């Protein structure tokens, strides 16, 4: 986030509200504030958990929400807006990490052995899938922003269907329906 303006953290609630109202500048500023902190948290968590941990993005978002509220930077009633926003940050953290890993694999110099066994050789590595989902999600967002929002919260944010339902103010049944359709669209886009 080079070049982003330094924003006093106490403005988080204000920023969140402006961003929600569609203020793009507030959105960028919000991102600049929250991204490094969530990323830091994610990294710390991963270090504790050792390698190849499933990053529990959901509890991470909860934890950071509580921290923001406790430190008075965020009002509790902004929980919904924060959750919607935080899934976007988590997506960005995950996608950037996947890009780093993919670049590392390509640039890691010679690998003296070929490891193929012929068994499910076509299974892409984790980061390839992540990047594919990310790309497919970009086009999905142009077609149906709400479907894309569900994917972002479910896949990248790791939220439960109930949490997504609360955030979007719809029923859980609707979330399930949206999630099914979103997955179909993503898979079609990734395979097509």
């Amino acid at each position, binding site marked *: 986030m080079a070049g982003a303006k330094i924003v006093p953290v106490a403005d988080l609630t204000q920023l969140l509200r402006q961003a929600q109202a569609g203020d793009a500048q507030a959105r960028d500023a919000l991102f600049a504030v929250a991204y490094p902190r969530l990323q830091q948290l994610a*990294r710390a968590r*991963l*270090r504790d958990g050792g*390698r*190849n*941990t*499933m*990053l529990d*993005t*959901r509890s991470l978002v909860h934890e950071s929400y509580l921290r923001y509220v406790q430190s008075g930077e965020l009002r509790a009633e902004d929980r919904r807006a924060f959750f919607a926003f935080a899934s976007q940050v988590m997506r960005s953290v*995950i996608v950037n*990490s*996947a890009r*780093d*890993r993919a670049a*590392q*694999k390509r640039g*890691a110099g*010679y*690998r*003296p*052995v*070929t*490891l*193929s*066994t*012929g*068994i*499910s*050789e076509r*299974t892409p*590595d*984790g980061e390839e*899938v*992540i990047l*594919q*989902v990310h*790309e*497919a999600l970009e*086009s*999905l967002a*142009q*077609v149906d922003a709400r*479907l894309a929002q569900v*994917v972002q919260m479910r*896949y*990248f944010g*790791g939220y439960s269907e109930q949490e997504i339902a609360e955030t979007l103010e719809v029923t859980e049944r609707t979330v399930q*329906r949206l999630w*099914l*359709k979103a*997955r*179909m*669209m993503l*898979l*079609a*886009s*990734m*395979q*097509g």
Partner: protein
Amino acid sequence: MGLSTQQMARLSELLDQALPMTSAARRTWLAGLTSEDLPLVQSLREALQADDPDVASIRSLDQPPAMDPGAGDSVATEHHAGERLGAYELQRPLGAGGMAEVWLARRADGTFERLVALKIPRLSHVPVEMAERFARECRILATLEFPGIARLYDAGVEANRTPYIAMEYVQGEPLIAWCDSQGHDVRPRIDLFLQVLDAVGYAHARGIVHRDLKPSNILVTGQGEVRRWILAWQACCRPTRNRDR
């Protein structure tokens, strides 16, 4: 990759029509689609097949993505330095792919000092019965002894059913990269090619095929004289004498 935004939008409309239908109704409906939707029919059919909670493809997105602290350090591995497998102690990862990891390891049972390249297939991808078979056939491969072939020292299955093979640790450069870095023209390349053929011929004469022979599997060592080709893991499983497959 994939569908255009327009196609995605149309797919979305079509799914809205199809999702509430029964599967029988969907079949009739699919057959009745007009020609302008034909490019999407295959995607649509596959998408609708996924309307079953047990279908693997649709479930694949249910799990959050696996993460690695990565960014800045080495490749993601399931094993860790210091871990013992059989008589070997892992030192550092040499490479990791979707199917296997390769570690630089040293013999740690005090019998002798030797560095090996230890290949460890990811067991989650290997059926259990394969593990035993893998070890058995590796022993056959261990009989190969030729200057151009990386020696296979040992193979085994750790108590927790992790199979491993210990191979000669070859420090070299992949064939094409090496030729390019030396500025070789055709003649020296042909010389190398003939050396590879010698090694392949030797293995074939003993009833063993490589099954993944390619330039990146052939390493040229520092002296620029001895050439190794590395047996890919699947070669371990398929000596040609096994005519049952």
